[in-house]
């Protein structure tokens, strides 16, 4: 990065944060602080909902996923449009009618205090963990790729988001998200355009190469339970994951209950239901096109250059450099085969096309084997090294191929994405702690100003917890998957609490509380011992909780504590 890139990064980040704080400086009441400006329209809500979900890892890690595995990750989002329809039709009208600050207030009205606190507590645990990941994830990648100190990168992004979220509350979050999303999409579209311009092949040939290397397999109907992304895991697991996330996660509920009317909130959700799959497709396709680009250009043997340089220093036998040399030779051969393959295709010579494609595939496999071999050597030399470098693919492409100024814009886009999701999380963590625990359990009848101050302190506290987690984190999974795994393990049971509340009116608080506890323990045990796609836990958790609650309620007998009138506390 040169001074122009730094100027773009620093000015855009500070300007958005400062504008958010300045615009919300006069709002002092709890309603404004927790719900924001209740005059916002559907587009602002829609952008805010999308921004909360799309963290930095969506834009850094997902292209790497596309580079490595192709388009199949898009299936992860197949359940989302259906879930958003359910949220808009069932969850949202109820939240607005009860006039709640948090989703968990509803559980208190429908069941009892202990169930409300369980739901809020599970949210705090899983979202608190995820909040650490959303700071850590981009920081580890950006600091490694740019040569910055990891702790300073975490502190810069973490402290900036804490300051404007604590100061401005929900409205500052919504306002800044709008401008942050503008920077993100400006950057991503510019990167895609530059990539297409730089591609040595035309778009048709690029798709032929990507398809020939199995990078365009977007839909898979396999029933293999060990296969992570299929149509079925995406539809069923994705439906439950999205239903939990959008219907019961306070970081999302807080975004869409702030609409000026039910109509605006609903349309904001429907905007996301329509555009999420195309958006994820676009980001994955960007990764696939980066893959195609590197089939025609010299490709890095290992994308995490910093880790590679360290590994080479600790490899006195020179095995790694030998493998890298062999990779370069294989890569050059593969490029020749690809040209033969495309030439044969243009000439209509089917036999030659098939033969050249087979040779190119064989060379690709050989290259991957060499990378795997190097990864094993690196892990053997230093067990702390992560051999999977998919998270570094896109940032490596940006730094190596984009012009200055645009590099700064893309890095600003990654930071903006980190801040926008982080701010919504902190806002939700602070709100839930204030409303569901502090106001409900500690101090019931204080003034608005008191609760606003308390909410600011809790937001600050959660920000510091997330910063602490980020500073000491060490993650093995691809980062976008790490977030989804944490969500899948905890979300299911929280969703079950809401589904039982909505649809099983005879089940009371005691039955659902113990069923939820037992199901959560069961999911944690299964996750530890079973090797199935994590998306299945979004189905297993709720199914177990619903069944158990029915059994326990049958054992307890009819209860007169089931409340028919659900009013906010």
């Amino acid at each position, binding site marked *: 990065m040169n001074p122009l890139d730094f100027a773009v990064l620093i000015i855009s980040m500070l300007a958005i944060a400062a504008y958010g704080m300045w615009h919300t400086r006069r709002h002092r009441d709890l309603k404004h602080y927790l719900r924001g400006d209740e005059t916002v329209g559907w587009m602002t809500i829609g952008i805010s909902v999308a921004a909360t979900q799309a963290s930095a890892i969506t834009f850094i890690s997902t292209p790497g996923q596309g580079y490595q595995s192709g388009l199949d990750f898009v299936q992860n989002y197949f359940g989302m449009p259906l879930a958003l329809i359910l949220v808009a039709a069932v969850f949202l009208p*109820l939240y607005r009618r009860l006039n709640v600050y948090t989703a968990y207030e509803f559980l208190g009205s429908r069941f009892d205090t202990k169930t409300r606190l369980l739901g809020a507590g599970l949210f705090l645990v899983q979202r608190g963990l995820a909040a650490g990941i959303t700071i850590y994830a981009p920081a580890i990648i950006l600091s490694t790729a740019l040569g910055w100190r990891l702790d300073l990168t975490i502190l810069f992004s973490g402290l900036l988001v804490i300051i404007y979220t604590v100061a401005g509350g929900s409205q500052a979050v919504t306002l800044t998200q709008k401008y942050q999303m503008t920077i993100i999409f400006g950057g991503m579209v510019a990167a895609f355009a530059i990539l297409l311009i730089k591609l040595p092949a035309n778009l048709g040939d690029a798709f032929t190469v990507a398809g020939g290397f199995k990078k365009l397999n*977007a839909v898979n109907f396999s029933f293999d339970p060990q296969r992570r992304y299929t149509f079925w895991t995406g539809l069923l697991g994705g439906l439950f994951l999205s239903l939990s996330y959008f219907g019961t996660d306070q970081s999302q509920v807080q975004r869409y209950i702030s609409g000026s009317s039910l*109509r605006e909130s609903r349309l904001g959700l*429907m905007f996301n239901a*329509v555009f999420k799959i195309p958006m994820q497709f676009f980001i994955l396709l960007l990764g696939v096109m980066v893959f195609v680009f590197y089939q025609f250009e010299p490709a890095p043997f290992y994308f995490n250059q910093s880790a590679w340089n360290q590994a080479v220093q600790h490899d006195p036998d020179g095995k790694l450099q030998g493998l890298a040399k062999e990779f370069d030779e294989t890569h050059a051969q593969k490029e020749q085969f690809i040209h033969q393959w495309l030439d044969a295709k243009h000439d209509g010579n089917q036999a030659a096309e098939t033969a050249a494609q087979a040779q190119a595939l064989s060379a690709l496999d050989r290259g991957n084997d060499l990378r795997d071999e190097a990864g094993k050597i690196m892990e053997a030399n230093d067990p702390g090294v992560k051999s999977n470098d998919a998270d570094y693919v896109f940032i490596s492409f940006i730094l190596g191929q984009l012009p200055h100024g645009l590099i700064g814009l893309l890095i600003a886009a990654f930071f903006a994405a980190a801040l926008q999701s982080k701010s919504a999380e902190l806002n939700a963590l602070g709100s839930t702690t204030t409303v569901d625990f502090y106001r409900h359990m500690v101090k019931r009848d204080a003034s608005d100003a008191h609760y606003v101050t308390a909410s600011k302190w809790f937001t600050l506290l959660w920000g510091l917890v997330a910063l602490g987690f980020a500073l000491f984190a060490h993650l093995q999974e691809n980062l976008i998957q790490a977030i989804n795994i944490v969500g899948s393990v905890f979300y299911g049971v929280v969703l079950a609490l809401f589904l039982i509340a909505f649809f099983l009116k005879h089940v009371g608080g005691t039955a659902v509380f113990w069923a939820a506890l037992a199901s959560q323990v069961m999911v944690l045990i299964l996750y530890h011992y079973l090797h199935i796609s994590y998306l299945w836990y979004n189905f297993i958790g709720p199914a177990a909780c619903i069944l158990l609650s029915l059994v326990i309620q049958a054992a307890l007998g009819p209860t007169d504590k089931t409340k028919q009138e659900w009013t906010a506390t």
Partner: protein
Amino acid sequence: MKPPDDDQDELTGLPGLRTWRSVYLFVFGCFVLSVVLLLALTVIYS
């Protein structure tokens, strides 16, 4: 559970999609179209 009785919210304000049921059907149709297009991409280039 009963939906809120808020008549003005029942109007979607969208041309050609006057009820929420029709909005949901439209969104579902967009989802089906997305899957079909992705499936076509998979089949054509596999």
